[in-house]
């Protein structure tokens, strides 16, 4: 049996706040259905962007809606709040990436 090893734990377990994302808890692999946006149908109302619990819907004036698949858990809120049904949910294994 190898001796147990312990991680370095900072003083009183106090850790710095993340600035862009918390990459100590990557949640993209929670997803079984992936959101896919139909850019033609999308009206850029930003509802999906605002309602995402994981801040994983990105919005860009030029590019429109995109998803942060590193963290998206695939909950489907974006799809269900979309007023024009522009977001489909596709089985994760249908994608090669």
């Amino acid at each position, binding site marked *: 049996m190898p001796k147990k090893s312990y991680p370095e*734990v900072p003083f009183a*377990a106090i850790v710095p706040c*993340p600035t862009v994302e918390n990459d100590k808890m*990557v*949640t993209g692999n929670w997803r079984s259905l992936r959101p896919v946006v139909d850019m033609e149908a999308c009206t850029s109302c930003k*509802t999906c962007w*605002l*309602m995402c619990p994981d801040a994983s819907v990105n919005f860009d004036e030029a590019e429109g809606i995109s998803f942060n698949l590193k963290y998206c858990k695939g909950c*489907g*809120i974006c799809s269900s709040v979309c007023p024009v049904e522009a977001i489909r949910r596709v089985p994760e294994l249908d994608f090669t990436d």
Partner: protein
Amino acid sequence: MPVQYEEIKSVKKAPEEEFYLPGHRTCAGCGPAVGYRLIAKAAGRNTIFLGPTGCMYVANTSYACGPWKVPWTHTQITNGGAVASGVEVAFKQLIKKGKIKDEFPNIIVMAGDGGSIDIGVQAASALFYRGHDVLFIMYDNESYANTGIQVSPMTPYGGNTTFTPPGPMIPEGKKLFPKDPMLIFAGGGHPAVKYAATASIAYPVDLMNKVRKGLAFEGPAFLHVHCPCPKGWTYPAERTIDLAKLAVQTGMWFLYELEDGVRTWSRKVDKLRPVEDYLLGQGRFTHLEPEHVAKLQAWVNERAQVLGLNATLPPVR
């Protein structure tokens, strides 16, 4: 004089910057996580969060990390109000003495229903009584969800939790009706509380503005935010916002503000939908018999009348 704050006009005009970042272990479709993100967005950079034990502590900080861009500290589930009081007086005193150069921050307690109105009620009440400049937010998912869905005072009548399983002797599951935190905290018993509001994650602009308003008021403010819980209420994760909206449409949740004790309705509701519309599709209510649904409807109707909602109410069958 009305309090000054920078109002958010629409979904599109919501602040871009995120303070509740991607990367946390909350459920897919977590209602409180939606709430946290909106609240952090509205509060902005000069904010300190205190997180009493609950899902929004444990799920967010698993493990030795967290998703906040602004300072955050854990408190016990019992003492969010007390620790926040300590933080607030410390900042005031240290600034007054010139020991720190900080601008006085927004101090927000993000407590669950247990940490607010059950085991945390003593500390919360004391904070409100003493008038600390703190925004105390009760994110309400109507159960002790972090421990695996146990009954809390906010679990609705008829709710199935692991502590209130329905059975032949107790067909409705939970027999008790919930507390009313708005009345308890902001119904006049804590004179220092000049602003309190209910909010829902289904109405994000309204919620964010209530956060800003609460922070703008001098002294303590209370916000009671309805946050559906897909795990605890047993419904598909994508329906979180949907259910939050249905709660408001059926009167299982009322949206209003209390400013100096004066009630303002946040949305005009002409007609409440029957509670069935809300109950259906939630696993926690599937066992209810018509008589139990009628009891819930009667409770909703009575609350609507007591609160003075001017709307057509569904019949109690």
